[in-house]
């Protein structure tokens, strides 16, 4: 009986049947490949970011080591590894060493459920270009990301320094807040895809729809970024907040907090935090690609012209192209926007982003329920919904009213502090009666 249970694949239902059949060596190979790709991608992204930001600032950027300076980040990495590894006297040693590890491992793990391509022939085996999938893959990504926050919080706490502690608190508060908005943005995708598994979400975006615009049949890719545009916008904003990148890089606001949670870290431990940040950037970009931009599927004109564009190893190109587009957006944001003030940033997350996301989910669910029932015509519904949405957006995005300006001009007592009333005889004059303590028997 037990042997039978063991032989049953864990996810036997529906599309996920193609997972869980790989031999162990193939799984190991895929895992190692993901690791290698992520590390190389990090080195590349660091170089790319420096070059692009340099161009935006009319500089040249690293161009000496290797072709186009590509080996610059490798040289920097080696230099970082050879630096002195400091552990502050006030640090909590175990947690101090554990924290960067806790930050970097979840960053790698999340990539195990990202689909890079369709089923391919690899070493004589037929296997999907994805390490694994599960019915709750996207929730898995959120869960693992929330473990990654521990690395930052503990790194900030264990350093025994005020800057680190404040940076750690800030960054975890920020990541938790923006994870809420991010999760809410994903709900609409789940509703439309009818699944939370990444490979099924990619499949759900495969079909091209024809939309009638002024008598012309315009084919529109079934990307959720187009169908669920508000969700996409919310996700993109939240993902910048989630990865602590500019303009939301308040935890590392060097003018206020030196280096934030990693102020006291040096050498390889700092390198691990650095690695985690860049991998997290790649992770949220890959997730955005998978959930909103059709994943590894070729974009519409290419898929229409070229039959084989979605087969074999070609989809790797589309996947990485879409992902690098998001990473370029990250770099662009960093190159052009100033940092927000912390209270404005949190107010934006809680008072604007989350309510808008909630309203949008209610709207999507209502629309979905009505269209499934087939009651009212879809076009009318969309128009009504759009009107409501615009009104709500305008109301939400208006600055808070300033009616409090002339409401109260009289000075509140004691500057607004809650103070006890004065004694009935007026203020105590001279020395107060001495305090007497009674000994308890």
């Amino acid at each position: 009986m037990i042997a039978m249970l063991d032989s049953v694949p864990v996810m036997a239902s529906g599309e996920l049947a193609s997972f869980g059949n790989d031999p162990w060596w193939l799984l190991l190979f895929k895992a190692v490949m993901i690791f290698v790709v992520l590390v190389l991608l990090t080195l590349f992204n660091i170089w790319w970011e420096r070059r692009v930001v340099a161009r935006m600032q009319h500089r040249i950027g690293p161009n000496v080591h290797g072709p186009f300076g590509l080996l610059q980040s490798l040289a920097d990495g080696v230099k970082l590894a050879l630096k002195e590894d400091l552990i502050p006297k006030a640090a909590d040693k175990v947690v101090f060493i554990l924290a960067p590890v806790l930050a970097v491992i979840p960053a790698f793990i999340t990539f195990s459920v990202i689909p890079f391509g369709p089923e391919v022939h690899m070493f004589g085996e037929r296997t999907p270009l994805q390490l694994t999938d599960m019915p709750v893959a996207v929730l898995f990504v959120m869960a693992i990301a929330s473990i990654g926050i521990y690395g930052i919080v503990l790194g900030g706490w264990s350093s025994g320094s005020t800057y680190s502690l404040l940076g750690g608190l800030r960054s975890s508060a920020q990541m938790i807040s923006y994870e809420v908005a991010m999760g809410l943005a994903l709900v609409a995708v789940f509703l439309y895809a009818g699944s939370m598994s990444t490979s099924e979400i990619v499949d759900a975006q495969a079909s091209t729809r024809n939309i009638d615009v002024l008598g012309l049949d315009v084919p529109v890719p079934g990307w959720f970024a187009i169908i669920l545009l508000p969700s996409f916008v919310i996700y993109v904003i939240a993902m910048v907040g989630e990865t602590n990148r500019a303009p939301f890089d308040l935890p590392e606001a060097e003018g206020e907090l030196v280096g934030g949670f990693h102020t006291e870290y040096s050498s390889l431990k700092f390198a691990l935090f650095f690695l985690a940040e860049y991998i997290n950037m790649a992770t949220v970009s890959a997730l955005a690609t998978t959930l909103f931009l059709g994943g590894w599927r070729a974009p519409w004109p290419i898929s229409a012209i070229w039959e084989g564009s979605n087969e074999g190893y070609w989809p790797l190109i589309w996947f990485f192209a879409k992902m690098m587009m998001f990473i370029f957006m990250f770099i662009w944001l960093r190159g052009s926007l100033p940092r927000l003030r912390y209270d404005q940033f949190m107010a934006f997350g809680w008072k604007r982003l989350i309510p808008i996301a909630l309203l949008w989910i209610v709207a999507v669910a209502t629309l979905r329920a009505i269209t499934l029932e087939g009651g009212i015509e879809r076009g009318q519904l969309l128009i009504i919904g759009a009107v409501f949405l615009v009104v709500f957006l305008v109301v939400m995005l208006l600055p808070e009213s300033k009616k409090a300006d002339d409401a109260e001009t009289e000075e509140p007592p004691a500057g607004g502090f809650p103070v006890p009333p004065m004694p009935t005889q007026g203020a105590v004059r001279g020395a107060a009666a001495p305090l007497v303590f009674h000994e308890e028997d």
Partner: protein
Amino acid sequence: MTAFWILAPVMVLAALGILFVRKAVHAALLLAVVMISLAVLYAVLEAPFLFAVQIIVYTGAILMLFLFVLMLVGVDASDSVVETIRGQRVLATVFGLVLGLILVIGISQVTFGAAVGLDEANNGGNVPALANLLFSKYVFAFEATSALLITAAIGAMVLAHRERLTPKESQADAANRRMREYAATGRHPGPLPAPGVFARHNAVDTPALLPDGTASEASISRVLAARGSVRSAPALADDIEEVQRQLGQSPEQSPEVAGKSGAAATTEEQDAPGSEADAGASSSTNGAEEDEQ
């Protein structure tokens, strides 16, 4: 079963650790270990949704709030082992043992019905099966729980709410106030100056120097000033002589370590460092030091 036998000892050890470690943050971390192991056990038992939710809700949200509070309480706050209520420890041990005994006896009496099996429970996928149960049979409990949670959230907001008695000062108001203060008292409207930065000393307890050479009061924290632990920049400059006395020679005459000991003192090109004739001519400070000896 393999996963259980690997995780069970880890969980028991971590749970015992929660009881025995001194620092509250360490206890919270060990609790996280227990919770994540529990989540993995759910995953092994083919409950993937519960696995994800266990990590997101308990480890990601609730325990993180614990950590927040613990971190704000103090960086090295550790539990006090002093007994505040007399006899508490003995009573706790006795009642704990009694509770354990009752649980063991009680649970050993229970018999479970035949298990339906995971395939039956997960029929049509784990998530849809769970949704079907939640929104049909248990819909009332589900809604009641959500009402409870919303009530708790609103209650927390009401308790933490403070009525604003004065209008909030906006950025424009602050700028206007600063300018008014500048007109009335001459107080500088800009940000406070940073503390002094010197080649030999860079610390918050050294005031910055104003153009006329006096120390700027505004550049140091009021706390440090009240404690009386503020150093003065001219006194630090005098320290150099003390350092030189301790070294027994002037730093300029010590053997070159970084190769730049004479470079900072002069703006002229040094033709041949090391030759005595050039050293006297090119660098005035070096020459002065040599004259002294």
